[in-house]
């Protein structure tokens, strides 16, 4: 694929889109109505539609590729009304992933991934090459999986193939309808992280439907919270939805633990780290002792010769003479890196029964320390939610 094509991403606009159904004969689980939905998804962003069942989130999604036609209003992709497009042609340009995956049981994994390229009439060799490229991209060894059938794969593997299939023709827009809803929580977590890693690379425009607010907060650059009846309650970055819910419904939906949820949105690198008194092995003990006593924090952080933390030394245990030895250090606070979420950091600190976490860079060298007070300060309501959210998008844990 040419580099430029891979960078393509579409802008999706809903303009006063409504969909109503004759309510009398609606079975349970039928698509929900949508009421005057207007929102714009910027190019290259993940927009999550979230809400309880019957809120019209799936209906909203399926109106984009015209599996459902709106009763009124328009949906524009890059400024062009989808209603003016040939439906099958339109769908071949939009990646589509559904919860039950819907792989073709009679085709091999390789053929499944190449479905859209085949519909588009690509030469067989190019179809094959693209299928292998995509299987590798989603972490499935082509040599191992290409010739298998869907029945021979696990749920998580099938879901990855579903994502690979949707990416096959390098669409500028992806529609994903609860793509990780049918796998167990551990696999889901892994798939979500892989998805974010992939998106950081591909930068597609993605419309993503889920009923799981945690998933919405984790994956969305923008989150649209919808309410039964198809009303858009709030459309904002996840941090803003947590910090300032627009309505009681949103506040209820995100849950009473929304303060805690914000912890998982913020990463250590976004919080001001504190300096700490340090000394290296072999340094003069007396000098280090003096510096530690001069600091309000009663501990010295002992580093190895290359600057990697070894452990804490209580100021009272620092000898007055001689040099610092590794044996002085007592058990460590947890080691955090800049990409650790505050939630994980706090959890690790609670587990270790300490008030302070040591933050290191990629090579293990000290960056500073994170205190419980610093975490609390970052979540204070006065803190600018957009400021906190600044770097959360697209960064996989």
């Amino acid at each position: 694929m040419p580099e430029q094509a891979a960078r393509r991403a579409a802008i999706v606009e809903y303009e006063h889109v409504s969909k109503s159904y004759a309510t009398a004969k609606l079975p349970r689980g039928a698509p929900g109505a949508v009421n005057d939905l207007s929102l714009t998804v910027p190019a290259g962003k993940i927009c999550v539609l979230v809400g309880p069942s019957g809120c019209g989130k799936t209906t909203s999604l399926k109106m984009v590729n015209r599996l459902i036609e709106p009763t009124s209003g328009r949906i524009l992709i890059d400024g062009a009304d989808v209603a003016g497009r040939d439906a099958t042609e339109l769908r071949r340009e939009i990646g589509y992933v559904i919860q039950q995956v819907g792989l073709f049981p009679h085709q091999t994994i390789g053929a499944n991934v190449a479905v859209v390229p085949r519909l588009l009439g690509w030469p067989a060799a190019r179809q094959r090459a693209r299928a292998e490229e995509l299987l590798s991209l989603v972490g499935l060894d082509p040599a191992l999986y290409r010739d298998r059938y869907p029945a021979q794969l696990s749920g998580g593997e099938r879901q990855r193939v579903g994502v690979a299939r949707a990416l096959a023709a390098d669409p500028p827009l992806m529609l994903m309808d609860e793509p990780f809803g049918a796998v167990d929580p551990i696999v889901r977590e892994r798939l979500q992280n892989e998805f974010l890693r992939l998106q950081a690379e591909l930068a597609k425009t993605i419309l993503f439907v889920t009923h799981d607010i945690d998933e919405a907060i984790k994956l969305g650059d923008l989150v649209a919270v919808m309410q039964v009846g198809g009303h858009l309650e709030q459309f904002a970055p996840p941090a803003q939805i947590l910090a300032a819910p627009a309505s009681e419904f949103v506040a209820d939906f995100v849950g009473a633990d929304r303060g805690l949820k914000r912890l998982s949105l913020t990463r250590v690198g976004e919080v001001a780290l504190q300096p700490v008194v340090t000394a290296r092995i072999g340094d003069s003990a007396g000098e280090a002792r003096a510096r530690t006593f001069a600091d309000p924090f009663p501990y010295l952080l002992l580093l190895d010769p290359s600057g990697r933390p070894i452990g804490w030394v209580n100021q009272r245990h620092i000898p007055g003479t001689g040099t610092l030895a590794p044996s002085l250090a007592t058990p460590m606070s947890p080691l955090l890196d800049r990409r650790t979420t505050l939630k994980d950091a706090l959890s690790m600190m609670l587990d270790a029964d300490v008030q302070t976490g040591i933050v290191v860079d990629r090579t293990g060298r000290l960056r500073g320390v994170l205190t419980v007070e610093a975490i609390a300060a970052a979540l204070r309501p006065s803190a600018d939610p957009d400021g906190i959210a600044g770097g959360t998008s697209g960064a996989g844990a």
Partner: protein
Amino acid sequence: MIDWGWLAGHLDAIAYRTAQHVYLAALGVAIGFAISFVLALVAARHRALYPPISALAGILYTIPSLALFAALISITGFSVVTAEVPLVMYTLVILVRNIVAGLDGVPGEVLEAADGMGHTRRQRLWRVELPLAVPLIVAGLRLATVSTIGLVTITGTISDAFGGLGYFILDGYHRGNFLTEMYAGALPSILLALGADLLFVRAQRRVTPWAHARALEATS
């Protein structure tokens, strides 16, 4: 006891009647399948038409074959058409219902994925729905073929020119239960049915490798 002398003297006749039997049965199933296929596609596309189509095929199935032969002789004479019409008719009910059931058995999420990726209706039918319906279609063909092979024997009641291996059964009966001749008709006919069934099972295994693929090592 078996009259070996009669058997030895009639090997050519047995070979000829066997070939005729295969021909009459194959023609009946082939025409029946062609008609059923069209009817089933129509029924699958327009659901409202399925009950009447299925009912009509069911009613045709209830008409006694001997009565039908008698009625047809006055129209089509002692021709192959008279022999084939009932054979074809009796395959319809099995084949139409199996093809429709096969199409109905395609999982909803597979159809949704097919639509969502931009298949036209025709592409969806030929690339997705029909291949997935193959196991049930073949099951219908097996049943239709075995029952047609059995039915060919009674086309001998139209005239001696038909009947396939059934000719020997009728002829042996008319000779006062000449068992050797009756066995010479019945046994090859049974073997034909078994052989045809086996052939279909083999063919299906070949065209639907996916249906036999079992989980090798499922890890996520």
